[in-house]
């Protein structure tokens, strides 16, 4: 039987694909020597249009394509998240590739494909579908990571990411096959039904471990984090930004679907494992970040640390924990992308990512210095910024679920992280600059930096509406009664 298809559910993905096709045609049709960056401008315009359309999709719930594709509040939340992240990433790309005229266009196309992949990950309702969606995201990221062919580090990063990514895809497939072997289905709902009526068997536990390995690779959790520092440092900065926000969030959607959906009834078995992983991950990330001299590498380690904080929410296993993950990611979006935007703008004028070259940035560009300071302080979790309140509810959820020791480790880690974030801040504000040349910041970039600042402070001060959004996003999920 041919399935009946409800096109309205999948309209956002269809629009993304249509824009992609238009951009492909334009890439071919535009004269080679055109000065204007048409693809970049159209990409941004398209994204704003899509965000407007996304707002109308809020109440949409349902499944289509024989249950392969589902739309619910969680998917809606994360699709908006990905669209907003992509606005920043595309703006960064426009700046970063200014000197490269001919190869820039393909980069936009790959970014759009990555966006499509992320949106599909959020909407997958079947493991087979999820696998294809994750591959669309990851394979386009492999290409983008190795994009700077003349740069040895970029090639090395691409190679590392490819090999470890392929390994994690292998784990994922192996896990799915074991799960299929026991439950005879790849569909989320069917597996959830099986899980709720059976005790955990070695076979399913093994499958869960394998699938978690693949998700852990995406969110950069220890012990699947080996690729992070090198890839973050070597990849073109817009890709690093996408990896640290978009790809990580995509991993967390899957994580939430696994632990707050499919495997929710085995809550008791995985809570401690997740809590232990969370503790190890945040310690590793924060201790590793202390000795870094490259800002992208530092943010790489800090991104491992943040994966650890976010895993606390999953370990808590409660509705509060799940909404804390969403809220934290929302703050992390503006904070981290603000930081990466500064890194891109700084790199264009000084061709360096070394922290020592950031000395005296405040005298060269007060706006860049201010944004970077706010971002670092928000990442560390200082009130009244977004990072503070996010950490606060994550800790609250952890304590409420009885994991007091985990909350304690997290607090120690937050103190450690203050050290290395403030060391960078000291370089920017206290140290004398090597050169006094002003770093030019164009008007659109100023606007975007402003949005990042408003996001960081706004989410930190007016938490209410954002917390509401984060909470409604997890309404459809399953939590265990206390």
């Amino acid at each position, binding site marked *: *039987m*041919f*399935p009946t298809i409800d096109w309205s559910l999948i309209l956002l993905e269809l629009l993304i*694909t249509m824009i992609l096709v238009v951009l492909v045609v334009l890439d071919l049709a535009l004269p*080679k020597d055109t000065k204007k960056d048409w693809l970049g401008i159209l990409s941004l315009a398209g994204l704003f249009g899509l965000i407007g359309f996304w707002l109308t999709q809020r109440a949409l719930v349902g499944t289509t*394509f*024989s249950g*392969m*594709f589902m739309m619910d509040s969680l998917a809606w939340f994360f699709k908006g998240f990905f669209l907003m992240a992509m606005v920043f990433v595309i703006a960064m790309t426009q700046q970063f590739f200014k*000197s*490269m*005229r*001919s*190869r820039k266009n*393909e*980069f936009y*196309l*790959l970014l759009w*494909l990555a966006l*499509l992949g992320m949106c*599909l990950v959020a909407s997958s309702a*079947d493991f*087979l*579908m999820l696998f*294809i*969606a994750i*591959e*669309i995201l990851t*394979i*386009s990221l*492999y*290409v983008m990571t*190795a*994009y*700077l*062919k*003349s*740069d040895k580090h970029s090639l090395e990063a691409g190679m590392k990411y490819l090999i470890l990514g392929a390994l994690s895809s292998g784990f994922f497939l192996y896990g799915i096959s*074991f799960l299929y*072997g*026991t439950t005879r289905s790849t569909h989320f709902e069917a597996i959830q039904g099986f899980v709720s009526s059976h005790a955990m*068997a*070695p*076979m399913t*536990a*093994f*499958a869960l*471990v394998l699938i978690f390995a693949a998700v852990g690779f995406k969110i950069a959790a220890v012990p699947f984090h080996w690729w992070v520092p090198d890839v973050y440092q070597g990849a073109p900065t817009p890709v690093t930004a996408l990896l640290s926000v978009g790809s990580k969030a995509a991993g967390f959607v899957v994580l939430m679907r696994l632990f707050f959906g499919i495997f929710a009834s085995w809550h008791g078995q995985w809570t401690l494992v997740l809590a232990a992983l969370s503790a190890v991950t945040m310690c590793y990330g924060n201790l590793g970040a202390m000795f870094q001299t490259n800002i992208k590498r530092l943010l790489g380690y800090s991104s491992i640390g943040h994966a650890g904080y976010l895993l606390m929410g999953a370990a808590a296993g409660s509705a509060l924990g799940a909404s804390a993950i969403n809220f934290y990611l929302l703050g992390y979006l503006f904070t981290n992308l603000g930081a990466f935007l500064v890194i891109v703008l700084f790199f264009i004028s000084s061709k360096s990512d070394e922290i020592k070259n950031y000395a005296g940035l405040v005298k060269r560009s007060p706006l860049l210095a201010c944004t970077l300071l706010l971002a670092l302080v928000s990442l560390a979790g200082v009130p009244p910024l977004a990072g503070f309140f996010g950490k606060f509810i994550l800790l609250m959820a952890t304590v409420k679920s009885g994991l007091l020791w985990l909350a304690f480790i997290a607090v120690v880690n937050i103190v450690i992280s203050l050290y290395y974030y403030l060391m960078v801040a000291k370089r920017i504000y206290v140290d004398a600059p090597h050169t006094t040349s002003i770093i030019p910041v164009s008007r659109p970039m100023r606007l975007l930096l402003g949005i990042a600042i408003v996001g960081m402070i706004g989410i930190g001060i007016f938490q209410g509406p954002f917390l509401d959004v984060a909470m409604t996003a997890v309404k459809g999920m399953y939590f265990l009664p206390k």
Partner: protein
Amino acid sequence: MNMPAFFFCIFAAILIFASLAVVFARNPLYNVLSLVLAIFCLSSLFMLLEAFFVGIILLLVYAGAVLVFFLFVVMLLNLNAPTFTTTEQSRFRLWGWLFGLAFLSETFLAIKSFLAAEVTQPSSIRGTIETIGQILFTDYLLPFELTSLLLLIAIFGIVSLAKGAMGTGAKAGENQ
């Protein structure tokens, strides 16, 4: 022992030895050739499970196309075994053995527990092209269509990474 079980044992034994040879053979040429053999045995196992289509595809695509391509690369580029320093190698070896054994024992435990559970006969649906085609174009329509985008990414990737690679490197590529 009935006929399928007999063939299963033969092919599975060859498969294990071929896979070990893939890892342990020194000469890259033998690595690839043993992989071809392994794929051939694997496809036979699929045939025994009545998954004819998967078996044929495995044979055609992997053994026929991908691995022959590998073979060409290995032969044309005259690759030698990668050189590690001894300390590096022994460190990798240790971790490799450790994780490998842990993984193997875990797999063994999982499969052992499964053997005790009820084992159902393969369903009456046969893995022919017809049935697979029908499932692909009905239930699995969306994932099937999305694989076309994966191919698109592969094309973009090859074009953008290989563009200008023949010249003097990236400079030539960027200024085209």
